[in-house]
């Protein structure tokens, strides 16, 4: 009888230990599942590296494991990342899409799997796929840059435009904002408008070709800072860097420094760190139960010039 009692006690202790161990293991498992994915269109551009790294750092600060996925500007790679992150049990996606239309399907897949997606900087053409979209107000920023362009280049003369990726809404919001101003001055003639695909090397290559065909241009408006740096390099090589005024968009550190040195006239500061941090905070709020997010949240763009450049640096305001 005494032996039976001891056996029962031993079994109870073992069972309690087993339950505690299982619960602890489950808790560790749950903690391990609190992962946030940061899917970035390309890491071949320092601006997007800052965007991705800041989102990841803020997610980690908020207590999550965070991983960056590089889509290399390829929607198919992006789709594969989404398959993996859905299978991998990620709790939220901080997403910089490759294509305004092509990326919608990926977001819908995540949504169907119960994973919220927060778009950063680049938009998808849907209002019922992402949980929220945090987007730079590129149009307004480029209206301001257009006004500065007219003031700086003058109301007459030839100019060129380097467009970004043709399938991206930012490309056209920037171009349309710029043209909503510049096109009102009939003396300003756009002699070339070509895509530099938001890429520095491509921007350089396109600018070299434009300069050969149109040596008298007075200004070039570039849809991002990488292309502005490429265009400036082409102008230096052609010995025209003092004659042609270069305008960029993004607020990349090398362009902000070039503005201070008088090499580039202006850029539009997009505040990638602010957008990235806010998107991680949104994901955290969602995971904790919040559901009412505005679909499209505009983040203002500020124009950086030689006069106010001292206020800016490190991808934001000092």
């Amino acid at each position, binding site marked *: 009888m005494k032996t039976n009692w001891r056996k029962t006690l031993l079994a109870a202790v073992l069972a309690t230990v087993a339950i505690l161990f299982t619960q602890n293991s489950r808790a560790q498992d749950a903690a391990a599942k609190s992962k946030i994915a940061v899917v970035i269109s390309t890491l071949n551009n320092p601006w997007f590296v800052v965007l991705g790294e800041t989102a990841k750092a803020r997610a980690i600060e908020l207590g999550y494991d965070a991983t960056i996925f590089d889509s290399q500007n390829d929607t198919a790679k992006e789709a594969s990342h989404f398959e993996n992150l859905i299978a991998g049990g990620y709790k939220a996606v901080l997403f910089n899409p490759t294509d305004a239309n092509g990326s919608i399907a990926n977001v819908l897949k995540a949504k169907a799997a119960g994973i919220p997606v927060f778009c950063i900087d680049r938009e998808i053409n*849907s209002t019922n796929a992402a949980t929220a979209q945090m987007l730079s107000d590129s149009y307004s920023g480029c209206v301001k840059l*257009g006004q500065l362009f007219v003031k700086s280049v003058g109301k007459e003369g030839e100019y060129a435009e380097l467009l970004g990726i043709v399938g991206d*809404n930012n490309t056209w919001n920037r171009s349309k904002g710029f043209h909503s101003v510049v096109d009102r001055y009939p003396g300003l003639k756009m002699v070339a408008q070509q895509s530099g695909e938001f890429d520095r090397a491509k921007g350089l290559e396109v600018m070299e070709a434009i300069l050969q065909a149109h040596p008298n241009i007075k200004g070039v408006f570039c849809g991002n800072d990488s292309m502005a740096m490429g265009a400036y390099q082409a102008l230096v090589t052609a010995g025209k860097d003092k004659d042609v005024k270069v305008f960029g968009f993004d607020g990349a550190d090398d362009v902000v420094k070039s503005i201070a040195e008088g090499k580039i006239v202006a850029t539009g500061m997009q505040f990638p760190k602010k957008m990235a941090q806010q998107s991680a905070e949104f994901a955290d709020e969602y995971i904790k139960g919040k559901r009412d997010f505005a*679909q499209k949240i505009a*983040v*203002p763009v500020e124009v950086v010039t030689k006069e106010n450049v001292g206020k800016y640096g490190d991808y934001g305001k000092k």
Partner: protein
Amino acid sequence: MRAVRWLIAIVVIASVCWLFPLFHVMSLKTATAEKVAATFNATQFAEMFWTNQLPTALEKTVTAKTLLPAFQSDAAAAKKKFSRSVGLSEGYFYFLRGEGKILSVSDDEVSLAVTEGSTNAEVSLQTGLIFGNALRDGTGLLSANDYPNSQDFNDISAALNHIVETRTLPKLREQAKVGAKISFVGCAEVGDEATDLKPLKVIPFQTKTE
């Protein structure tokens, strides 16, 4: 018997294809027309907004006689009470109406004194080229959340600015004379309080001179 089976099979396949056609044939003209119909037409939308929505929103305006003393005594409190902003922007908009006396007229603006006995330009009606989103965002009637593609939403700004430039401003420029009384309804964008409040720069969409 075999022929009957074939006949039944053909009838079944034909019926299925008729009910659920694998493709539609249409003329290029029809296809283009359908594509155009599916494309957002900002000009048409702005026209409808201008004619139907905007006139019904006048009750949402704040009067200049209320707003100006309010932001002169406490700009932050006036901003909180009467303005609206978009997204994370620090800039903001006022949707206002008022009456005043014309103090000066230039190519780009008509300056007004609005408060009783004032001889200073307190409101500047913008009469040059109109850029930006003040008319689209200032009224609070339109939201980016309703537009899947932000390009469409931005096109509304350009279309509304065009309406003001072609309808409101020519009449205002023609009728504005120093000393005349004028009433107005419009939107003001404040990006920099140091420069945009004194005078308050208003893009008018309705004006009437006495």
